[in-house]
């Protein structure tokens, strides 16, 4: 049941899925991601930005770059055609300077989901328990507050809901101090599907969807960024 994307990346000797591969994998498991396109130059990038809708995030696509932000490979909140062109040029020159060896195969243009609650959904393999699914508050607060909960995959909808309710982040979701109520059941859905993805692809040794952005009740949740670490089993 291993997905082709994972098999292909392994056959190419890679240890990580590329961004668009990660999004494709998520989509294959029914986990919503913001609309995205792959562009090889700025003209295509502008077209792509208009298709997915502004504002967009632009991310470099390169098999050689592990940490995109360190080499200027991520530009957020791009709002117009002009800005897209400028961002692409900026990114090219920054990467030429900071990572001259890196092969750049193009840009990922992704619609930016606005104004949600950021949470993290992760997965890892444990010697005793097998596949462990983690949930917690997202962003920089994750590690500070350690507001996380864990369950063993495969997990049910009830498991997912109880792991959400176990965290303080849950209070933010149900409308803490006038904050809007978040779409909790769409997050349950993401967690359950992610658990299936981890079970069916044992070559993924670690993964996190960080952040998953939870929108207001009824509007769903989106996995905005995803990291999949793979290794042959």
């Amino acid at each position, binding site marked *: 049941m291993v997905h082709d994307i994972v098999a292909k990346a392994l056959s190419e000797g890679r240890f990580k899925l590329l961004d668009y591969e990660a999004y494709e994998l998520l989509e294959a498991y029914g986990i919503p991601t913001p609309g995205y396109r792959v562009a090889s130059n700025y003209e295509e990038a502008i077209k792509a930005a208009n298709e997915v809708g502004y504002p967009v995030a632009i991310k470099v696509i390169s098999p050689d770059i592990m940490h995109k932000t360190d080499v200027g490979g991520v530009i957020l909140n791009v709002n117009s055609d002009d800005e897209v062109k400028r961002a692409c040029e900026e990114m090219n020159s920054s990467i030429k300077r900071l990572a001259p060896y890196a092969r750049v195969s193009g840009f990922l243009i992704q619609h930016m989901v606005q104004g949600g609650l950021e949470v993290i959904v992760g997965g890892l393999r*444990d010697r005793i328990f*097998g596949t462990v699914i983690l949930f917690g508050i997202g962003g920089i607060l994750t590690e500070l507050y350690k507001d996380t909960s864990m369950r063993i995959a495969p997990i049910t909808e009830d*498991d997912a809901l*109880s792991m959400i309710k176990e965290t303080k982040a849950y209070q933010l979701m149900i409308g803490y101090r006038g904050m809007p109520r978040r779409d909790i059941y769409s997050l349950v859905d993401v967690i359950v599907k992610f658990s299936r993805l981890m079970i069916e692809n044992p070559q993924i040794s670690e993964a996190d969807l960080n952040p998953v952005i939870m929108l207001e009740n009824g509007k769903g949740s989106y996995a905005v960024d995803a990291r999949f670490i793979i290794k042959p089993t």
Partner: protein
Amino acid sequence: MVIEEASEATSTGGKGIDVLFYPSSVAVIGATPKPGHVGYVIMSNLLSKFKGKVILVNPRYDSINGVKCYKSITEVNDEVDLAVVAVPAPVVPQVTADAVKKGVKALIIISGGFSEVGEEGRKLEDEVRAIVKNTPVRVLGPNCIGVYNADNGFDTFFLPEDRMGRPPNGPIALISQSGAVAAAILDWASRRRLGIGLAVNYGNKLDVNESELLEYLANNRNVKVITIYMEGLKYPGEGLRFLETARKVTQMKPVIVYKAGRTKASAGAVASHTAALAGDYEIYRGAFRQAGLIEANSVREMFDLAKALATQPLPRGRRVLVLTDSGGMGIQAVDTLSTLGLEVPELPETIQSMLRKFLPPLAIVRNPVDVTGSATDEYYKIVLDSILPTSYVDMALIVALMQIPGLTPNLVNYIIDAKRYGKPMVVVSFGGSAMMEKFNEALENNGIPVYATPDRGARALWALVEYSMIKKMLREEVE
């Protein structure tokens, strides 16, 4: 796919375990006349208490204290159900082979000196494993303290009675990863007359492991609540098996777990102590929640909760009547109850005005209902009878400080009488008088758990609510 594998594994689990707890004849291999030795204590305990046949085995003696002693178990003519092995580790493979040849159904290997001490010991353990492989013979241990069964007096705990008291028969079972902790718990429980009818420690789990014991105890009709003391699982993949087993068992009866080795520092201590690799506590915690295990934070709390789960019906909701003769104790109860997500709802005006007619003017009737220091037994009766049968509350926490002059031992009867409303009740009783001791004992003998402080009573009610959730009588929902 993973689920199928795990349930297939557990479906064969529990076979041949019964004889470990209920043998009809037992051979003590390593019986000895030397007081203080492990073989001596086990022999003496079995000879004096076990309601079955005891056979002594030791090649060095023809008889011990007037009882015939065999050179080898193979020389015994009668059937032997089970062999308890207390000989030095290097001899264990030989006596195991003899026992298998004799046709025993199971062995309890008390002896240490196996995988817990290193490579040499591991080899010995593999040898024993190879001997029982492809036979129906089940092995508990090695390096364990074995089994305590209050019902039939089968007891391999090698600690003399004057050092370790034995608890009375009762509905609580204990599975302990640590032998020493198990012994300490039984001693502690015996002083408190806490009914731990069955206890087992599995040591290095060469064959029988905690999952199988759990499954067995789930099907044992004498057991109402299972408690587990755990430091950490040991082998790859064991976690899933444990999770799948526990998930089934917790639908049958409540299981409470106390996991030691929670912090990084003590996790290290555990690893060197029992050769178990204590896992990351957060993962365990998640797995426990998922399996429907109720987690306790200490040994004492584990049995606080067990006592309630063994005796009380399950609540249909989270609303608690707090009935007290002390405002302070009532407040403490409310504090803990609300922290744990239980509710203490204000009673409706209709009920309040009715109560006011019967209670003294200073009494507070909102909930907590405070019958004050001038309370009499009858006040408690009035409140219980007028509120418990209504749909406003799901359970009761009753504080009865017996120091006040108006209360008499007869209060016990009123509280016991309120059991007919089918709602859980716990009593908080604190103090040191002989009358109070009697009061507590009378309640506990009649299936009403008593706690020394309001927070402990509150936590016991929380466990009942938790178990209602686990049994899906209450459903997980978004608020």
